[in-house]
């Protein structure tokens, strides 16, 4: 019976509305008072039933909930034969709850979408060797699974056989499919775009990287800040206090009407719901944009950050040396590149890799003999020519002559922070290339945005030499740059900044800077789904796109503002309502309930604005 009534809440709302309309019309149009009263009485009793059931259940577990207040108020109104008010109050309360559920679901949608991406089934190899579809919960570590084209990888595992391309966007934010063959690692929640794989399960369920991410987000949306814990404690005593107050008023004034009005007005709805709503909508917005904010405490601290410390390699720069500049001292450029590619193809030097990637070889000449000159480069015999590829020292050793223009080129390229690769054919300089770890696209603009959002100090720390780091800092407009930093030095430096009273965020790729990530007020791991980074940092940017960083900071600030607005709205409404009970004529139970429900919807709608934040 109880469950039946509770499950029919929506119908009850509808019937109440119809009954009230009948009462209204019959009273006005037909002057039929009896019909009006009976309609209102039925509406009240129907409406109060589910509320009373919830109130009873709450009292059973020793909680004085809003339902208790409303139930007493409605019974009171019925006793003093104020049927109009009792009907309107129950209707508004139920209808409000209906709207709240709809809107709250919207605020939670972003995170729901994410959790829906979790794999649900898997093809598991059974004892007879056949693959059968099972629930993902039934997969254990060590099971052999089959992943078909278009399917989600169900667990974190290793490829045993087969090959295919996997879209790992759910883990790395990178939408370009990654090729996988035997022994490659695959992640739960990623999608096999083509091919077929047999994998062995290494980690399942909540232990997978994707499972951890989901759990962290779910916990984040329900994590509580100091303010929230205060509000919770407050509301625990607040409702009983309102009840006591109403009883006192009744005892002293013998005015039931006033007492029950206070009960309705005292409902704490907007206050308890305002902050969690901002939280969930904000974290949802982040999740949609590949930003994982670990809870409201983190959001609060993040919004106050005044100093950003960046790791250089892989964060501000791409982390791979590439050809940035070149000067050709010959007419037959293509021919020179072919010679260069032929020689570099023999080498496994990191700069050689950068050169080959740049040239994108179309043809190669056979290389007859290669001599590696330590600390200099390579000298090779190709097509009867002597080709020297290496640095300035090698060229000087080979007596290659530099023209005036070459000398200025050399100085310029070096000043720009390049490693130099020179190419001489038969002791004549043909080509000069500058190779460096280039600054990632869009970093400069996004750092400007951080400044606009209120970041005062932008610092780069790196293990590279001071000159290289200074160049990066100059190019990007950073406020400080420190080179020759070992991981230990970096964390010591962050400690120092904290001691000076700065609120520090550290941004790194999480590969070797986890101590700094953990030590900073806010550790921001960028562009990686590595477990360590996800565990030790406070904010994870799934996508390596640098524009996520100002978005994350702006979002944190917007969430904090939104929470403040909601607290002001909620407290303001209660104060105004209580004041008007005592000092005005027009306040009654129905208006009180209307304002109360409206304020709840306003804070929810206000929180929903965060979903749109860009």
């Amino acid at each position, binding site marked *: 019976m109880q*469950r039946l009534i509770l499950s029919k809440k929506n119908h009850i709302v509808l019937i109440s509305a119809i009954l009230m309309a009948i009462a209204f019309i019959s009273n006005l149009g037909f002057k039929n008072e009896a019909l009006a009263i009976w309609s209102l009485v039925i509406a009240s009793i129907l409406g109060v039933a589910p509320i009373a059931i919830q109130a009873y259940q709450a009292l059973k577990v020793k909680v004085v909930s809003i339902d208790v207040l409303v139930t007493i108020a409605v019974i009171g109104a019925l006793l003093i034969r104020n049927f109009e008010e009792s009907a309107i109050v129950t209707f508004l309360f139920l209808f409000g709850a209906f709207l709240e559920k709809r809107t709250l679901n919207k605020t939670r949608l972003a995170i729901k979408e994410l959790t829906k991406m979790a794999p649900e089934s898997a093809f598991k190899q059974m004892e007879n060797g056949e693959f059968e579809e099972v629930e993902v919960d039934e997969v254990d570590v060590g099971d052999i699974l089959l992943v078909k084209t278009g399917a989600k990888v169900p667990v974190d595992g290793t490829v045993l056989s087969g090959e295919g391309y996997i879209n790992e966007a759910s883990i790395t934010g990178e939408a370009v499919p990654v090729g996988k063959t035997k022994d490659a690692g695959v992640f739960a929640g990623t999608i096999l775009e083509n091919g077929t794989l047999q994998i062995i399960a290494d980690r399942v369920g909540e232990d997978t990287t994707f499972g951890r991410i989901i759990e962290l987000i779910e916990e984040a949306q*329900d994590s509580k800040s100091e303010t929230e814990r205060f509000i919770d404690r407050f509301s625990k005593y607040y*409702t009983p206090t309102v009840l006591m107050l109403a009883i006192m008023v009744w005892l002293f004034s013998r005015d039931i009407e006033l007492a029950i009005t206070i009960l309705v007005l005292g409902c704490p709805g907007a206050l308890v719901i305002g902050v969690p709503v901002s939280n969930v909508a904000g974290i949802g917005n982040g999740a949609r944009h590949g930003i994982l904010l670990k809870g409201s405490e983190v959001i609060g601290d993040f919004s106050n950050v005044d100093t950003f410390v960046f790791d250089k390699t892989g964060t501000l720069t791409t982390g791979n040396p590439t050809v940035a500049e070149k000067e050709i001292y010959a007419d037959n450029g293509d021919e020179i590149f072919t010679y260069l590619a032929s020689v570099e193809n023999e080498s496994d030097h990191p700069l050689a890799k950068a050169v080959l990637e740049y040239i994108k070889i179309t043809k190669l000449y056979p290389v007859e003999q290669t001599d590696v000159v330590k600390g200099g480069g390579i000298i090779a015999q190709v097509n009867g020519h002597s080709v020297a590829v290496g640095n300035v020292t090698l060229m000087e050793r080979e007596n290659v002559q530099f023209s005036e223009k070459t000398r200025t080129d050399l100085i310029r390229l070096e000043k720009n922070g390049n490693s130099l690769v020179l190419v001489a054919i038969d002791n004549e300089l043909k080509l000069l290339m500058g190779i460096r770890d280039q600054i990632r696209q869009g970093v400069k603009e996004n750092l400007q945005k951080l400044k606009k959002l209120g970041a005062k100090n932008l610092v780069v720390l790196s293990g590279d030499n001071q000159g290289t780091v200074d160049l990066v800092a100059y190019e990007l407009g950073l406020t400080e740059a420190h080179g020759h930093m070992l991981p230990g030095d970096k964390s010591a430096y962050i400690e120092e900044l904290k001691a000076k009273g700065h609120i520090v965020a550290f941004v790194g790729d999480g590969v070797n800077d986890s101590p700094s990530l953990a030590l900073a007020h806010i550790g921001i791991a960028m562009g990686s789904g590595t477990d360590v980074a996800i565990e030790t940092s406070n904010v994870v940017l799934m996508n390596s796109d640098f524009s996520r960083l100002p978005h994350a900071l702006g979002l944190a600030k917007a969430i904090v503002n939104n929470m403040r607005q909601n607290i002001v709205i909620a407290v303001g409404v209660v104060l105004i309502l209580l004041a008007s009970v005592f000092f005005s004529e027009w306040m009654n139970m129905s208006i009180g309930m209307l304002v109360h429900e409206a304020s709840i919807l306003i804070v929810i709608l206000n929180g929903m604005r965060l979903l749109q934040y860009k």
Partner: protein
Amino acid sequence: MQKATIQLETLICPSCGQKIENATKSLNGVEKESVKVMFNASKVKFDFDAEKISVEEVEKAITALGYEVIKSQVKVK
């Protein structure tokens, strides 16, 4: 000791959370300190002693409060 996660219908009032928390804590065999009601995720997480109580009994207690249980998961700790 086992660890359970119960997924509930969408919770809309934070005081529902308090009701569920109190109800779950009051059951014999449920580790009181471990009970966590997640309002936004609409989940209850807790540790319990499988010899004293089963998940079904906890589910029943929550359903009796008027909240629908969607699914539950148990993991041996």
